[in-house]
């Protein structure tokens, strides 16, 4: 039985769940840009917002620890990389904060929005653009979101298989990498191929209809609050 992951739609009710995916998506984009533009206190505000939203989804402690480890390691790497370049503790800490906030916001979207909803939102944004097939891109994005947990599960299995064949004794880091990446890629490609066939067998074509709900008062209110906070973070 697969466990529900942080990088995955969570069954726990959350205030963000009832929000229209288009609003969530636009705010996420806006905030992601702002994270890298605003000054210190603006960033602190955005981090606070991201943290509150993230914990309002009641993430499971077990997965928090499990995934937190990886994020922590990346954070430390980013710290030293920035510190090496800028020789300034505060700047280095801020770039870690930027990274963590980005991850938190991403997880807020993924854990409260079904991939189908993300697909619809992407379609809605891309539809007015000429020369691209909005439905094809939207479907690919949906499938990518669905693949993420699978990918992690597969990587975990491959890691175990490597450990049981004593990969630790291998000194060559290049070989260490390839023995993970090549099986991972081939399994992803194989899975994607079968999925594509299975979709075609169920009459999937590029011409797809999407039914999006109308925006409600709640959506507009949320958008206004979100924009207000964004404005505040710029002024701070």
């Amino acid at each position: 039985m697969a466990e529900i992951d942080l990088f995955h739609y969570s069954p726990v009710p959350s205030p963000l769940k009832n929000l229209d995916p288009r609003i969530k998506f636009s705010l996420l984009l806006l905030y992601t840009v702002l994270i890298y533009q605003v000054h210190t206190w603006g960033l602190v505000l955005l981090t606070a917002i991201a943290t509150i939203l993230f914990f309002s989804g009641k993430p499971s402690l077990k997965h928090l620890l499990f995934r937190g480890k990886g994020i922590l390691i990346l954070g430390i790497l980013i710290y030293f990389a920035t510190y090496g370049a800028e020789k300034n503790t505060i700047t280095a800490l801020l770039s870690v904060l930027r990274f963590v906030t980005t991850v938190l916001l991403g997880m807020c979207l993924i854990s409260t929005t079904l991939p189908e909803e993300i697909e619809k939102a992407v379609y809605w944004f891309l539809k007015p653009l000429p020369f691209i097939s909005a439905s094809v891109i939207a479907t690919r994005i949906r499938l990518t979101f669905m693949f993420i947990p699978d990918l992690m599960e597969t990587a975990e299995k491959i890691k175990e298989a490597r450990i049981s064949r004593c990969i630790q004794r291998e000194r060559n880091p290049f070989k260490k990498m390839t023995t993970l990446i090549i099986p991972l890629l081939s399994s992803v490609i194989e899975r994607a191929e079968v999925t594509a066939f299975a979709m075609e067998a169920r009459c999937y074509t590029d011409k797809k209809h999407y039914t999006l709900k109308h925006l409600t008062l709640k959506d507009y209110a949320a958008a206004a609050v979100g924009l207000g906070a964004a404005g505040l973070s710029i002024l701070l």
Partner: protein
Amino acid sequence: MHFFNQKTMALLEVVHLSKSFPGGTEALKDVSFLVGEGEFLVISGKNGSGKSVLMRHLNGLYKPDEGKVLYRGTPIFKDILMVRQKIGMVFQNSSSQIVSQTVGKDVAFGPENLHINAVEQNKRTNKALEDVGLLDKIDHNTRTLSGGEKRRLAIAGILAMNPEIIILDEPFSNLDFPGVQQVLRQILFLHKKGHTIICITHELDKVLYHADRLILMDKGSIVCDNIPGKILIKAPQYGIRIPGNIEKEPPLLILERMSWLK
């Protein structure tokens, strides 16, 4: 049990199908057979004999190098979307077949593609899930299902399109004893309801007792095509294990053992 009478019109006609892959693998060599309405056909053969490649030709996922497939007398590529509705496929790896996050949405995926209205979509989804016994899990996350449940979900996704023919590729692989029983019961139920069943498997001991007919494949060709009792004797020479000693026991006695529902 009935054996398809070749004089009545065939539901599906496979005519001189050949297929090679780049690199020189001849996956299918001049394969021909007919499938009659309401038949329960088992296709067997060892690993790499071409079963899955054959199946992908039956609803046009692969294009043959030579030959053709006819559905009710018309080449399938004339109206491929209609054919794909009529010929449902459950793939070898059922978790790759799941395209949605929740059970209900996954079943609705096919009807959605057919642009059926929402009310009818819901009706079909509920009916299909009821048929496979998963209605109580309609809102569950697809990733949390067991192997047997995933396979039944894949079947429900097909049922929601109202198919005539249901093709299942290795429907018993990776399942435990109760899992096999569940899926087998499901298949028999669908056959009884009038669906034509094509079950592709090398695990003959699980299902053959219920089949009307058996096709054995080897190296991309059909080597036998007859009622199970008549060709059981040849199965071991094509790498398929059967539960008994075919030299000492009558085939029908062995056939009696070939069901995991017994």
